[in-house]
Protein backbone atom coordinates (compact mmCIF):
# COMPACT_ATOMS: atom_id res chain seq x y z
CA UNK A 1 0.00 0.00 0.00
CA UNK A 2 1.41 3.35 -1.00
CA UNK A 3 1.38 6.46 1.14
CA UNK A 4 -1.36 7.90 -1.07
CA UNK A 5 -3.44 4.74 -0.87
CA UNK A 6 -3.14 4.87 2.92
CA UNK A 7 -4.20 8.50 3.24
CA UNK A 8 -7.02 8.21 0.71
CA UNK A 9 -8.04 4.76 1.91
CA UNK A 10 -8.12 3.46 5.48
CA UNK A 11 -6.92 6.69 7.07
CA UNK A 12 -9.48 8.74 5.15
CA UNK A 13 -12.35 6.46 6.15
CA UNK A 14 -11.22 6.42 9.78
CA UNK A 15 -10.87 10.22 9.85
CA UNK A 16 -14.24 10.75 8.16
CA UNK A 17 -15.91 8.39 10.63
CA UNK A 18 -14.38 10.15 13.62
CA UNK A 19 -15.43 13.47 12.14
CA UNK A 20 -19.05 12.50 11.60
CA UNK A 21 -19.47 10.61 14.88
CA UNK A 22 -17.63 13.32 16.80
CA UNK A 23 -19.67 16.18 15.37
CA UNK A 24 -22.97 14.38 15.96
CA UNK A 25 -21.90 13.46 19.49
CA UNK A 26 -20.99 17.06 20.28
CA UNK A 27 -24.19 18.49 18.84
CA UNK A 28 -26.40 15.96 20.59
CA UNK A 29 -24.53 16.73 23.81
CA UNK A 30 -25.19 20.44 23.43
CA UNK A 31 -28.86 19.92 22.63
CA UNK A 32 -29.30 17.55 25.57
CA UNK A 33 -27.86 20.17 27.90
CA UNK A 34 -31.14 22.01 27.46
CA UNK A 35 -31.70 25.22 29.34
CA UNK A 36 -33.22 26.32 32.61
CA UNK A 37 -36.99 26.41 32.64
CA UNK A 38 -38.22 29.97 32.12
CA UNK A 39 -41.40 30.50 34.11
CA UNK A 40 -41.99 34.07 32.96
CA UNK A 41 -44.84 34.87 30.61
CA UNK A 42 -43.39 34.93 27.09
CA UNK A 43 -43.73 38.25 25.26
CA UNK A 44 -42.66 36.83 21.94
CA UNK A 45 -41.65 33.67 20.14
CA UNK A 46 -38.40 32.07 21.22
CA UNK A 47 -38.18 30.16 17.95
CA UNK A 48 -38.65 33.32 15.89
CA UNK A 49 -35.98 35.00 18.01
CA UNK A 50 -33.57 32.13 17.34
CA UNK A 51 -34.14 32.30 13.60
CA UNK A 52 -33.90 36.10 13.58
CA UNK A 53 -30.64 36.03 15.49
CA UNK A 54 -29.10 33.60 13.04
CA UNK A 55 -30.15 35.65 10.04
CA UNK A 56 -29.62 39.16 11.38
CA UNK A 57 -26.21 38.44 12.82
CA UNK A 58 -24.83 37.52 9.44
CA UNK A 59 -24.16 41.25 9.27
CA UNK A 60 -23.46 43.59 12.20
CA UNK A 61 -26.07 46.19 12.84
CA UNK A 62 -26.18 49.42 14.74
CA UNK A 63 -22.86 50.99 15.57
CA UNK A 64 -20.95 47.74 15.79
CA UNK A 65 -19.49 47.71 12.32
CA UNK A 66 -16.57 49.93 13.32
CA UNK A 67 -15.61 47.44 16.00
CA UNK A 68 -16.21 44.24 14.07
CA UNK A 69 -15.78 45.34 10.46
CA UNK A 70 -12.28 43.95 10.05
CA UNK A 71 -13.13 40.63 11.65
CA UNK A 72 -16.30 40.40 9.59
CA UNK A 73 -14.69 41.15 6.22
CA UNK A 74 -11.63 38.96 6.84
CA UNK A 75 -13.87 36.20 8.16
CA UNK A 76 -16.14 36.25 5.15
CA UNK A 77 -13.21 36.40 2.72
CA UNK A 78 -11.67 33.36 4.39
CA UNK A 79 -14.81 31.27 4.77
CA UNK A 80 -16.24 31.99 1.33
CA UNK A 81 -12.86 31.36 -0.26
CA UNK A 82 -12.50 28.11 1.67
CA UNK A 83 -15.96 26.79 0.78
CA UNK A 84 -15.53 27.65 -2.89
CA UNK A 85 -12.14 25.97 -2.78
CA UNK A 86 -13.41 22.82 -1.10
CA UNK A 87 -16.58 22.44 -3.15
CA UNK A 88 -15.68 23.73 -6.59
CA UNK A 89 -12.03 22.88 -7.20
CA UNK A 90 -11.81 20.16 -9.84
CA UNK A 91 -9.56 17.77 -7.85
CA UNK A 92 -11.85 18.07 -4.81
CA UNK A 93 -14.96 17.33 -6.85
CA UNK A 94 -13.35 14.23 -8.27
CA UNK A 95 -12.36 13.11 -4.78
CA UNK A 96 -15.84 13.75 -3.37
CA UNK A 97 -17.38 11.86 -6.29
CA UNK A 98 -15.06 8.91 -5.85
CA UNK A 99 -15.17 8.69 -2.06
CA UNK A 100 -18.42 10.21 -0.83
CA UNK A 101 -21.30 11.03 -3.14
CA UNK A 102 -20.78 8.96 -6.24
CA UNK A 103 -21.67 11.96 -8.38
CA UNK A 104 -19.92 15.19 -9.24
CA UNK A 105 -20.77 18.67 -10.41
CA UNK A 106 -19.29 21.48 -12.47
CA UNK A 107 -15.86 22.65 -11.41
CA UNK A 108 -14.48 26.15 -11.46
CA UNK A 109 -11.91 26.94 -14.10
CA UNK A 110 -8.36 26.92 -12.78
CA UNK A 111 -8.20 30.71 -12.47
CA UNK A 112 -11.34 30.65 -10.30
CA UNK A 113 -9.86 27.90 -8.17
CA UNK A 114 -6.65 29.89 -7.69
CA UNK A 115 -8.60 33.07 -6.93
CA UNK A 116 -10.61 31.26 -4.25
CA UNK A 117 -7.36 29.95 -2.76
CA UNK A 118 -5.89 33.47 -2.73
CA UNK A 119 -8.99 34.79 -0.97
CA UNK A 120 -8.96 31.99 1.60
CA UNK A 121 -5.28 32.48 2.39
CA UNK A 122 -5.67 36.26 2.52
CA UNK A 123 -8.55 36.02 4.99
CA UNK A 124 -6.86 33.41 7.15
CA UNK A 125 -3.58 35.32 7.39
CA UNK A 126 -5.45 38.53 8.23
CA UNK A 127 -7.35 36.71 10.99
CA UNK A 128 -4.10 35.26 12.32
CA UNK A 129 -2.43 38.68 12.20
CA UNK A 130 -5.32 40.13 14.18
CA UNK A 131 -5.15 37.30 16.68
CA UNK A 132 -1.50 37.98 17.46
CA UNK A 133 -1.57 41.74 16.85
CA UNK A 134 -4.59 42.72 18.92
CA UNK A 135 -3.70 42.46 22.63
CA UNK A 136 -7.27 41.74 23.67
CA UNK A 137 -7.78 38.98 21.12
CA UNK A 138 -4.37 37.58 21.98
CA UNK A 139 -5.28 37.46 25.64
CA UNK A 140 -8.56 35.70 24.86
CA UNK A 141 -6.96 33.21 22.46
CA UNK A 142 -6.24 29.72 23.72
CA UNK A 143 -3.87 27.06 22.42
CA UNK A 144 -6.92 25.43 20.87
CA UNK A 145 -7.71 28.55 18.84
CA UNK A 146 -4.16 28.71 17.53
CA UNK A 147 -3.95 24.98 16.87
CA UNK A 148 -7.16 25.05 14.84
CA UNK A 149 -5.96 28.06 12.90
CA UNK A 150 -2.55 26.60 12.16
CA UNK A 151 -3.95 23.21 11.27
CA UNK A 152 -6.36 24.79 8.80
CA UNK A 153 -3.51 26.82 7.37
CA UNK A 154 -1.33 23.73 6.97
CA UNK A 155 -4.13 21.86 5.20
CA UNK A 156 -4.53 24.77 2.79
CA UNK A 157 -0.78 25.11 2.38
CA UNK A 158 -0.22 21.46 1.51
CA UNK A 159 -3.09 21.73 -0.96
CA UNK A 160 -1.46 24.77 -2.49
CA UNK A 161 1.89 22.98 -2.72
CA UNK A 162 0.18 20.13 -4.56
CA UNK A 163 -1.34 22.47 -7.14
CA UNK A 164 0.95 21.08 -9.82
CA UNK A 165 -1.00 17.79 -9.53
CA UNK A 166 2.01 15.94 -10.86
CA UNK A 167 3.63 14.51 -7.73
CA UNK A 168 1.84 11.78 -5.81
CA UNK A 169 3.68 12.45 -2.56
CA UNK A 170 2.37 16.04 -2.39
CA UNK A 171 -1.19 14.85 -2.90
CA UNK A 172 -0.72 12.24 -0.19
CA UNK A 173 0.74 14.86 2.16
CA UNK A 174 -2.29 17.06 1.58
CA UNK A 175 -4.62 14.15 2.26
CA UNK A 176 -2.73 13.30 5.46
CA UNK A 177 -3.24 16.83 6.79
CA UNK A 178 -6.91 16.72 5.76
CA UNK A 179 -7.31 13.46 7.71
CA UNK A 180 -5.66 14.97 10.79
CA UNK A 181 -7.85 18.07 10.47
CA UNK A 182 -11.00 15.95 10.30
CA UNK A 183 -9.98 14.00 13.41
CA UNK A 184 -9.17 17.20 15.33
CA UNK A 185 -12.29 19.06 14.24
CA UNK A 186 -15.00 17.67 16.60
CA UNK A 187 -12.86 18.16 19.69
CA UNK A 188 -11.80 21.72 19.06
CA UNK A 189 -12.92 25.28 18.43
CA UNK A 190 -13.26 24.29 14.80
CA UNK A 191 -16.66 23.00 15.89
CA UNK A 192 -17.80 26.62 15.62
CA UNK A 193 -18.59 25.65 12.03
CA UNK A 194 -21.66 23.89 13.49
CA UNK A 195 -22.15 25.36 16.95
CA UNK A 196 -22.46 28.97 15.84
CA UNK A 197 -26.06 28.18 14.86
CA UNK A 198 -26.82 26.97 18.37
CA UNK A 199 -25.06 29.78 20.22
CA UNK A 200 -26.77 32.45 18.13
CA UNK A 201 -30.04 30.58 18.36
CA UNK A 202 -29.81 30.30 22.15
CA UNK A 203 -29.18 34.02 22.50
CA UNK A 204 -31.89 34.86 19.95
CA UNK A 205 -34.41 32.59 21.70
CA UNK A 206 -33.74 34.26 25.04
CA UNK A 207 -34.22 37.71 23.56
CA UNK A 208 -37.14 36.62 21.41
CA UNK A 209 -39.02 35.26 24.39
CA UNK A 210 -38.64 38.67 26.02
CA UNK A 211 -40.04 40.29 22.92
CA UNK A 212 -36.76 41.87 21.95
CA UNK A 213 -35.22 41.68 18.49
CA UNK A 214 -31.85 40.03 18.99
Amino acid at each position, binding site marked *: MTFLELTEGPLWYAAATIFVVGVVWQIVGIVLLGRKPDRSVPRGSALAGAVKANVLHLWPHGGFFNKTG*FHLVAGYIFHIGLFVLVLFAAPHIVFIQDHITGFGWGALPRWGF*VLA*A*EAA*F*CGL*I*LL*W*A*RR*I*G*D*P*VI*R*LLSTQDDLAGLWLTFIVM*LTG*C*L*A*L*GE*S*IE*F*LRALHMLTVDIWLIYFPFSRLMHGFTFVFSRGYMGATFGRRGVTP
Partner: protein
Amino acid sequence: MFMKSCFSKPLLSFLGSLLVVAGLAWAAMAVDVVFSGDALAQTRGAVPGNVQGSANDSDMWRRLRRGEGFVISDPRTGTVVAIQSSGEEWRAFRNGPLSTYGGWLLAVSALAIGAFYVLMGRLNIDGGPTGRWLPRFTNAERVIHWYVAATFIMLAVSGLTILFGKQVLMPLIGQKAFSVVASAFLQGHNLFGPLFIVGIVAMFIIYLKDNFLKAADIKWLMMGGLFSKSHPPSWKFNFGEKAWFWLAVITGAILSVSGIILDFPSLLGERSQLQLALLFHAGAAVIVIAAAIAHIYLGTIGVEGALEGMTAGRVDENWAKQHHDLWAEEVMAEQATTEDGPAHPPANAGPQPAPGE
Protein backbone atom coordinates in the same frame (compact mmCIF):
# COMPACT_ATOMS: atom_id res chain seq x y z
CA MET B 1 66.04 7.51 -74.28
CA PHE B 2 65.32 9.22 -70.96
CA MET B 3 61.64 8.16 -71.14
CA LYS B 4 62.57 4.62 -71.83
CA SER B 5 64.94 4.57 -68.90
CA CYS B 6 62.43 6.08 -66.41
CA PHE B 7 59.19 4.27 -67.32
CA SER B 8 59.27 0.55 -67.79
CA LYS B 9 56.51 -1.20 -69.73
CA PRO B 10 54.58 -2.56 -66.71
CA LEU B 11 54.50 0.87 -65.08
CA LEU B 12 53.21 2.47 -68.27
CA SER B 13 50.51 -0.20 -68.44
CA PHE B 14 49.46 0.57 -64.82
CA LEU B 15 49.27 4.33 -65.42
CA GLY B 16 47.34 3.73 -68.57
CA SER B 17 44.84 1.59 -66.70
CA LEU B 18 44.38 4.36 -64.08
CA LEU B 19 43.74 6.87 -66.84
CA VAL B 20 41.08 4.62 -68.31
CA VAL B 21 39.35 4.13 -64.92
CA ALA B 22 39.47 7.87 -64.16
CA GLY B 23 38.11 8.64 -67.58
CA LEU B 24 35.23 6.23 -67.09
CA ALA B 25 34.44 7.68 -63.64
CA TRP B 26 34.50 11.23 -65.01
CA ALA B 27 32.20 10.20 -67.82
CA ALA B 28 29.79 8.57 -65.36
CA MET B 29 29.70 11.72 -63.19
CA ALA B 30 29.15 13.87 -66.24
CA VAL B 31 26.21 11.72 -67.27
CA ASP B 32 24.75 11.89 -63.71
CA VAL B 33 25.06 15.68 -63.65
CA VAL B 34 23.43 15.98 -67.02
CA PHE B 35 20.48 13.82 -65.96
CA SER B 36 20.08 15.47 -62.50
CA GLY B 37 20.37 19.07 -63.58
CA ASP B 38 17.29 20.17 -61.57
CA ALA B 39 18.75 19.05 -58.25
CA LEU B 40 21.94 20.91 -58.94
CA ALA B 41 20.01 24.08 -59.65
CA GLN B 42 18.00 23.80 -56.39
CA THR B 43 20.79 23.01 -53.96
CA ARG B 44 23.40 25.20 -55.66
CA GLY B 45 25.97 22.56 -55.12
CA ALA B 46 25.08 21.69 -51.50
CA VAL B 47 24.11 18.22 -50.40
CA PRO B 48 20.46 17.67 -51.36
CA GLY B 49 17.89 16.97 -48.67
CA ASN B 50 18.18 20.28 -46.84
CA VAL B 51 20.73 19.01 -44.35
CA GLN B 52 23.70 20.89 -43.03
CA GLY B 53 26.28 18.35 -44.09
CA SER B 54 27.93 20.56 -46.64
CA ALA B 55 28.15 23.56 -44.32
CA ASN B 56 31.03 24.27 -42.01
CA ASP B 57 30.27 23.31 -38.40
CA SER B 58 31.58 26.60 -37.03
CA ASP B 59 29.42 28.55 -39.42
CA MET B 60 26.39 26.50 -38.46
CA TRP B 61 26.90 26.97 -34.72
CA ARG B 62 27.49 30.67 -35.22
CA ARG B 63 24.17 30.92 -37.03
CA LEU B 64 22.47 28.96 -34.26
CA ARG B 65 23.92 31.28 -31.67
CA ARG B 66 22.55 34.25 -33.57
CA GLY B 67 19.12 32.65 -33.36
CA GLU B 68 18.73 32.23 -37.11
CA GLY B 69 15.80 30.18 -38.30
CA PHE B 70 16.19 26.60 -39.43
CA VAL B 71 13.84 23.98 -40.69
CA ILE B 72 13.27 21.81 -37.66
CA SER B 73 11.96 18.31 -37.38
CA ASP B 74 9.44 19.03 -34.58
CA PRO B 75 6.97 21.71 -35.63
CA ARG B 76 5.05 21.42 -32.33
CA THR B 77 7.47 23.81 -30.64
CA GLY B 78 6.07 26.58 -32.78
CA THR B 79 9.42 28.14 -33.50
CA VAL B 80 12.14 27.68 -36.06
CA VAL B 81 14.84 28.84 -33.65
CA ALA B 82 16.85 25.71 -32.86
CA ILE B 83 18.82 27.14 -29.95
CA GLN B 84 17.74 30.21 -28.02
CA SER B 85 21.19 31.50 -27.31
CA SER B 86 20.08 34.33 -25.03
CA GLY B 87 18.39 31.71 -22.85
CA GLU B 88 21.70 29.94 -22.46
CA GLU B 89 23.35 33.23 -21.50
CA TRP B 90 20.50 34.00 -19.10
CA ARG B 91 20.85 30.58 -17.49
CA ALA B 92 24.58 31.07 -17.14
CA PHE B 93 24.01 34.46 -15.48
CA ARG B 94 21.27 33.15 -13.21
CA ASN B 95 23.30 30.16 -12.05
CA GLY B 96 26.55 32.11 -12.08
CA PRO B 97 26.92 35.71 -10.91
CA LEU B 98 23.37 36.10 -9.65
CA SER B 99 23.47 32.99 -7.45
CA THR B 100 27.05 33.56 -6.37
CA TYR B 101 26.84 37.25 -5.48
CA GLY B 102 23.30 36.85 -4.17
CA GLY B 103 24.44 34.09 -1.87
CA TRP B 104 27.36 36.15 -0.71
CA LEU B 105 25.10 39.12 -0.01
CA LEU B 106 22.90 37.01 2.24
CA ALA B 107 25.92 35.52 4.00
CA VAL B 108 27.47 38.97 4.51
CA SER B 109 24.20 40.26 5.92
CA ALA B 110 23.99 37.41 8.41
CA LEU B 111 27.66 37.82 9.35
CA ALA B 112 27.26 41.58 9.76
CA ILE B 113 24.36 41.02 12.12
CA GLY B 114 26.46 38.53 14.07
CA ALA B 115 29.34 41.01 14.23
CA PHE B 116 26.96 43.77 15.36
CA TYR B 117 25.73 41.55 18.16
CA VAL B 118 29.26 40.72 19.24
CA LEU B 119 30.34 44.37 19.19
CA MET B 120 27.24 46.07 20.56
CA GLY B 121 25.39 43.29 22.34
CA ARG B 122 21.68 43.61 22.91
CA LEU B 123 20.61 47.24 23.07
CA ASN B 124 18.89 47.34 26.46
CA ILE B 125 16.55 50.03 27.69
CA ASP B 126 18.57 52.73 29.48
CA GLY B 127 17.42 52.89 33.07
CA GLY B 128 15.28 49.80 32.57
CA PRO B 129 11.56 49.61 31.82
CA THR B 130 9.40 52.13 33.64
CA GLY B 131 6.14 50.24 33.39
CA ARG B 132 4.61 53.28 31.72
CA TRP B 133 3.54 52.78 28.16
CA LEU B 134 3.22 54.87 25.06
CA PRO B 135 1.03 53.80 22.13
CA ARG B 136 3.27 53.05 19.15
CA PHE B 137 1.37 51.12 16.48
CA THR B 138 -2.37 50.95 15.85
CA ASN B 139 -4.22 47.70 15.28
CA ALA B 140 -4.28 48.35 11.54
CA GLU B 141 -0.52 48.99 11.45
CA ARG B 142 0.20 45.81 13.37
CA VAL B 143 -2.15 43.61 11.39
CA ILE B 144 -0.78 44.73 8.06
CA HIS B 145 2.79 44.36 9.33
CA TRP B 146 2.21 40.74 10.36
CA TYR B 147 0.30 40.02 7.18
CA VAL B 148 3.21 41.26 5.06
CA ALA B 149 5.71 39.51 7.33
CA ALA B 150 3.88 36.18 6.99
CA THR B 151 3.61 36.30 3.21
CA PHE B 152 7.17 37.62 2.93
CA ILE B 153 8.63 34.75 4.94
CA MET B 154 6.77 32.17 2.89
CA LEU B 155 7.88 33.80 -0.34
CA ALA B 156 11.45 34.20 0.89
CA VAL B 157 11.79 30.56 1.94
CA SER B 158 10.24 29.22 -1.25
CA GLY B 159 12.07 31.74 -3.44
CA LEU B 160 15.48 31.03 -1.93
CA THR B 161 14.84 27.31 -2.40
CA ILE B 162 14.06 27.90 -6.05
CA LEU B 163 17.11 30.12 -6.53
CA PHE B 164 19.73 28.26 -4.50
CA GLY B 165 18.12 24.86 -4.04
CA LYS B 166 20.11 23.12 -6.74
CA GLN B 167 23.39 24.21 -5.22
CA VAL B 168 22.49 23.99 -1.53
CA LEU B 169 19.57 21.63 -1.02
CA MET B 170 19.93 19.04 -3.76
CA PRO B 171 23.32 17.73 -2.58
CA LEU B 172 21.80 17.23 0.86
CA ILE B 173 18.48 15.60 0.07
CA GLY B 174 19.07 14.16 -3.38
CA GLN B 175 17.60 14.85 -6.80
CA LYS B 176 14.28 13.10 -6.33
CA ALA B 177 13.40 14.75 -3.03
CA PHE B 178 14.56 18.10 -4.34
CA SER B 179 12.30 17.80 -7.38
CA VAL B 180 9.35 17.33 -5.00
CA VAL B 181 10.38 20.29 -2.84
CA ALA B 182 11.06 22.51 -5.85
CA SER B 183 7.74 21.65 -7.49
CA ALA B 184 5.85 22.29 -4.25
CA PHE B 185 7.62 25.55 -3.46
CA LEU B 186 7.15 26.84 -6.99
CA GLN B 187 3.40 26.36 -6.69
CA GLY B 188 3.40 27.95 -3.26
CA HIS B 189 5.52 30.84 -4.44
CA ASN B 190 3.22 31.56 -7.36
CA LEU B 191 0.15 31.45 -5.14
CA PHE B 192 1.49 33.60 -2.32
CA GLY B 193 2.92 36.27 -4.62
CA PRO B 194 -0.37 38.11 -5.24
CA LEU B 195 -1.12 38.03 -1.49
CA PHE B 196 2.16 39.83 -0.84
CA ILE B 197 1.31 42.48 -3.45
CA VAL B 198 -1.94 43.28 -1.65
CA GLY B 199 -0.03 43.56 1.62
CA ILE B 200 2.82 45.71 0.38
CA VAL B 201 0.39 48.19 -1.20
CA ALA B 202 -1.62 48.42 2.03
CA MET B 203 1.57 48.76 4.06
CA PHE B 204 2.80 51.55 1.83
CA ILE B 205 -0.45 53.48 2.28
CA ILE B 206 -0.63 52.97 6.04
CA TYR B 207 3.02 53.66 6.89
CA LEU B 208 3.82 56.37 4.35
CA LYS B 209 2.90 59.35 6.55
CA ASP B 210 5.66 58.62 9.07
CA ASN B 211 8.38 57.79 6.58
CA PHE B 212 9.17 61.07 4.89
CA LEU B 213 12.74 62.23 5.44
CA LYS B 214 13.18 64.97 8.06
CA ALA B 215 16.12 67.04 9.23
CA ALA B 216 16.43 64.96 12.39
CA ASP B 217 17.05 61.88 10.26
CA ILE B 218 20.21 63.39 8.81
CA LYS B 219 21.35 64.31 12.31
CA TRP B 220 20.62 60.73 13.44
CA LEU B 221 22.75 59.46 10.59
CA MET B 222 25.58 61.93 11.20
CA MET B 223 25.71 61.00 14.88
CA GLY B 224 26.27 57.36 14.01
CA GLY B 225 22.77 55.98 14.28
CA LEU B 226 22.68 52.66 16.06
CA PHE B 227 26.43 52.76 16.67
CA SER B 228 26.23 56.03 18.58
CA LYS B 229 26.95 56.00 22.29
CA SER B 230 24.56 58.90 22.80
CA HIS B 231 20.95 58.91 21.65
CA PRO B 232 20.56 60.53 18.24
CA PRO B 233 17.25 62.38 17.76
CA SER B 234 14.46 60.58 15.99
CA TRP B 235 10.78 60.93 15.25
CA LYS B 236 8.52 57.86 15.08
CA PHE B 237 10.97 56.19 12.69
CA ASN B 238 14.70 56.86 12.52
CA PHE B 239 16.75 57.09 9.34
CA GLY B 240 17.53 53.38 9.34
CA GLU B 241 13.88 52.43 9.69
CA LYS B 242 12.89 54.86 6.96
CA ALA B 243 15.59 53.44 4.69
CA TRP B 244 14.20 49.96 5.35
CA PHE B 245 10.67 51.17 4.56
CA TRP B 246 11.69 52.69 1.23
CA LEU B 247 13.86 49.71 0.35
CA ALA B 248 10.93 47.41 1.07
CA VAL B 249 8.61 49.57 -1.00
CA ILE B 250 10.95 49.89 -3.99
CA THR B 251 12.00 46.24 -4.03
CA GLY B 252 8.40 45.32 -3.28
CA ALA B 253 7.31 47.21 -6.37
CA ILE B 254 9.97 45.50 -8.50
CA LEU B 255 9.03 42.11 -7.06
CA SER B 256 5.34 42.79 -7.61
CA VAL B 257 5.62 43.89 -11.24
CA SER B 258 8.12 41.22 -12.21
CA GLY B 259 6.19 38.64 -10.20
CA ILE B 260 2.95 39.40 -12.05
CA ILE B 261 4.80 39.06 -15.35
CA LEU B 262 6.18 35.69 -14.26
CA ASP B 263 2.84 34.52 -12.84
CA PHE B 264 1.06 35.49 -16.06
CA PRO B 265 3.64 35.00 -18.83
CA SER B 266 1.12 35.59 -21.58
CA LEU B 267 0.93 39.24 -20.51
CA LEU B 268 4.17 39.96 -22.35
CA GLY B 269 4.74 36.94 -24.50
CA GLU B 270 8.37 37.76 -25.18
CA ARG B 271 10.73 35.21 -23.72
CA SER B 272 13.51 37.76 -23.34
CA GLN B 273 11.25 39.99 -21.26
CA LEU B 274 10.36 37.08 -19.02
CA GLN B 275 14.03 36.33 -18.57
CA LEU B 276 14.70 39.93 -17.68
CA ALA B 277 11.75 39.95 -15.28
CA LEU B 278 13.14 36.90 -13.52
CA LEU B 279 16.56 38.48 -13.11
CA PHE B 280 15.01 41.64 -11.65
CA HIS B 281 12.78 39.50 -9.46
CA ALA B 282 15.61 37.40 -8.06
CA GLY B 283 17.95 40.39 -7.67
CA ALA B 284 15.41 42.50 -5.78
CA ALA B 285 14.45 39.50 -3.66
CA VAL B 286 17.99 38.80 -2.54
CA ILE B 287 18.54 42.47 -1.64
CA VAL B 288 15.35 42.78 0.39
CA ILE B 289 15.88 39.43 2.14
CA ALA B 290 19.40 40.50 3.12
CA ALA B 291 17.97 43.70 4.60
CA ALA B 292 15.09 41.82 6.22
CA ILE B 293 17.57 39.72 8.21
CA ALA B 294 18.76 42.94 9.88
CA HIS B 295 15.19 44.16 10.38
CA ILE B 296 14.12 40.91 12.02
CA TYR B 297 17.17 40.90 14.29
CA LEU B 298 16.68 44.50 15.44
CA GLY B 299 12.96 44.03 15.87
CA THR B 300 13.27 40.95 18.05
CA ILE B 301 16.41 40.09 20.01
CA GLY B 302 18.58 43.05 18.99
CA VAL B 303 16.71 45.83 20.77
CA GLU B 304 15.02 45.28 24.11
CA GLY B 305 11.39 46.37 24.12
CA ALA B 306 11.09 46.83 20.34
CA LEU B 307 8.97 43.75 19.67
CA GLU B 308 6.25 44.89 22.07
CA GLY B 309 5.51 47.78 19.77
CA MET B 310 4.43 45.36 17.09
CA THR B 311 2.82 42.72 19.29
CA ALA B 312 1.01 44.85 21.86
CA GLY B 313 1.07 48.18 20.07
CA ARG B 314 2.83 49.95 22.94
CA VAL B 315 6.39 50.64 24.07
CA ASP B 316 7.95 51.49 27.35
CA GLU B 317 8.38 55.20 28.04
CA ASN B 318 12.16 54.86 28.54
CA TRP B 319 12.46 52.89 25.31
CA ALA B 320 10.62 55.63 23.47
CA LYS B 321 12.82 58.37 24.95
CA GLN B 322 15.96 56.41 24.17
CA HIS B 323 15.24 55.50 20.57
CA HIS B 324 12.61 57.99 19.39
CA ASP B 325 12.86 61.00 21.67
CA LEU B 326 11.16 63.57 19.43
CA TRP B 327 8.24 61.24 18.83
CA ALA B 328 8.04 60.34 22.54
CA GLU B 329 7.87 64.02 23.53
CA GLU B 330 5.11 64.56 21.00
CA VAL B 331 3.06 61.61 22.24
CA MET B 332 3.58 62.48 25.90
CA ALA B 333 2.55 66.07 25.26
CA GLU B 334 -0.63 64.80 23.60
CA GLN B 335 -1.32 62.53 26.55
CA ALA B 336 -0.66 65.32 29.03
CA THR B 337 -3.65 67.16 27.61
CA THR B 338 -5.91 64.30 28.59
CA GLU B 339 -6.97 63.92 32.20
CA ASP B 340 -5.65 60.36 32.43
CA GLY B 341 -2.08 61.31 31.72
CA PRO B 342 0.70 59.09 30.39
CA ALA B 343 0.77 56.75 33.35
CA HIS B 344 -2.33 55.04 32.02
CA PRO B 345 -2.28 52.89 28.92
CA PRO B 346 -3.90 54.34 25.83
CA ALA B 347 -7.21 52.93 24.73
CA ASN B 348 -5.73 50.82 21.96
CA ALA B 349 -2.61 49.73 23.77
CA GLY B 350 -4.14 46.64 25.25
CA PRO B 351 -4.09 45.28 28.77
CA GLN B 352 -1.45 46.21 31.32
CA PRO B 353 1.13 43.55 32.02
CA ALA B 354 0.65 41.45 35.08
CA PRO B 355 2.92 42.27 38.05
CA GLY B 356 6.33 40.84 37.49
CA GLU B 357 5.77 40.36 33.77
